[in-house]
């Protein structure tokens, strides 16, 4: 830890105390020139156990944000800290799920959701010896999302909503501390989507997860999250954050209460603004 003092980076290898995820002045360019910046001057702090939603216009860098936090992509500038350590490579205590469920067609539901256990240590080396316990664990998880009767079905025998439930289970099977969701319900019909909101809210409550949800659906964001962040259009950065301080446990009825609708309205206003203003902060881009 003494080496930290003479480290060039004022922040060193450790983040600020008390924060689970800290994104600090991050730029990310997909190409060489400044024009290819996907996110610029990105700052975001997440405490452990928080449920954070990120909204913003299409192409603003929301998926990029997820890739930065999970270590799939290193920042061009700045640093990302998760659980106190600078992100450098991928993090196996993260679970991820995308809009496309990407279940393996040759595996049944149970074996599909157990895939991460065959990869992540320590499960990987224990899996064979403690097969019974792991099967029990997987079946329990399937039960909580209502998929228990479908454990031996293959993906093509499941509906879109069921596949997405299985996808969530696969992201959670190794008991991650951080769940990253990229528009997980984007391709579902409105009823199924609302059903899955409740499934996700229950899962999160039961497991004390930290969740980052990227979505286009403002109602979804307000319903699920503790804090909603609005990103500017490309190059993306956080332009607004809104704490969702609705009292009590939220139910689908909550979506029709004036306080809820007000927050959705307010966020919509912010999105409209960033879309009309065009890329914000483009003036700060150093000319090459």
């Amino acid at each position, binding site marked *: 830890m003494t080496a930290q003092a003479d480290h060039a980076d004022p922040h060193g290898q450790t983040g600020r105390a008390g924060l689970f995820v800290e994104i600090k002045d991050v730029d990310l360019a997909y190409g060489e020139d400044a024009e290819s910046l996907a996110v610029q001057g990105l700052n975001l702090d997440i405490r452990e156990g928080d449920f954070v939603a990120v909204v913003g216009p299409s192409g603003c860098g929301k998926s990029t944000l997820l890739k930065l936090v*999970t270590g*799939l992509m290193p920042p061009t500038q700045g640093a990302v800290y998760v659980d106190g350590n600078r992100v450098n490579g*991928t993090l196996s205590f993260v679970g991820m799920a995308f809009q496309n469920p990407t279940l393996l*067609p040759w595996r049944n539901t149970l074996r599909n959701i157990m895939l*991460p256990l065959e*990869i992540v*240590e320590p499960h990987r080396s224990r899996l064979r010896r403690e097969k019974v316990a792991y099967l029990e664990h997987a079946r329990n998880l399937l039960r909580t999302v209502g998929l228990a009767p479908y454990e031996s079905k*293959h993906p093509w025998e499941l509906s879109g909503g069921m596949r997405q439930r299985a996808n969530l289970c696969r992201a959670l099977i190794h008991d991650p501390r951080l769940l*990253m969701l990229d528009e997980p319900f984007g391709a579902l019909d409105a009823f199924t989507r609302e059903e899955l909101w409740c499934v996700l809210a229950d899962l999160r409550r039961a497991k004390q997860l930290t969740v980052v949800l990227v979505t286009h659906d403002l109602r979804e964001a307000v319903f699920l999250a503790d804090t909603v962040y609005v990103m500017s259009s490309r190059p993306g950065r956080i332009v607004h954050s809104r704490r969702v301080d609705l009292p009590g446990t939220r139910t689908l009825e909550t979506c029709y209460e004036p306080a809820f609708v007000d927050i959705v309205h307010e966020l919509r206003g912010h999105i409209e603004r960033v879309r009309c203003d065009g890329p914000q902060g483009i003036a700060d881009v150093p000319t090459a």
Partner: protein
Amino acid sequence: MSPLRKNLERFSPVIVTVAMFVAWEAVARLAKIPSYILPPPSEAVMAGYEFAGPISKHALQTLYTTLAGFGLAVVFGLLVGVIIGSSKLLYRAFYPILIGFNSVPKVALVPLLVIWFGIGTVPAIITAFLISFFPVVVNVATGLATIEPELEDVLRVLGASKLTILLKVGIPNSLPYFFASLKIAVTLAFVGSVISETVASNAGIGYLMMSASARFNVPLVFAGLIVIAAMGIGMYAIFATLEKRTTGWAFRS
């Protein structure tokens, strides 16, 4: 589906095949085409019956060279396919050469093979190998390259190595492509072995047809053709069944 339609679908291959032979027979007989130009199928069958001994001996030889070449193509095709399919760099590096090899007409290589290995079995096996190798490589490589990027992200976050992703996802994902290529490759292998036998061999159906046509025994030539076609259909059917059995999941989604 009505039962009539179901039956029609089931027997349609037989119906079409029989109809083709009937039409051929009718045209050859009604137009009085001399049998040294286009013999009716009945004559070809008669010739086949008459020369059943030599035909089966040569057919076995052709089957042997074909399957040997095909076997090599499967082994090396899988190997090369996995290698170039799992590395962008190698894919880029080797693709032009593979295309080049595939574009060379294999018949043009036979004289070269004869210089190197003499006439007979070896050039036939190698020609069969060369012609059936490419579809296996391309299909295996394609199967590996079509892994969904999101799935790769999900697994990479968990710390999966390239090898793990290849074993858990890449190879199973490419199996349907691989088995689909087998049925194509095996029919191509027949093309290769027969070409080589007609040019540079003293055994095999290709050789038999060559020598029969030199003696103007055109019905025997056609008998040879029918035997090759039958073997091709048989092998295709075997590998199509194998494909369904092993990768049935790929046909349902």
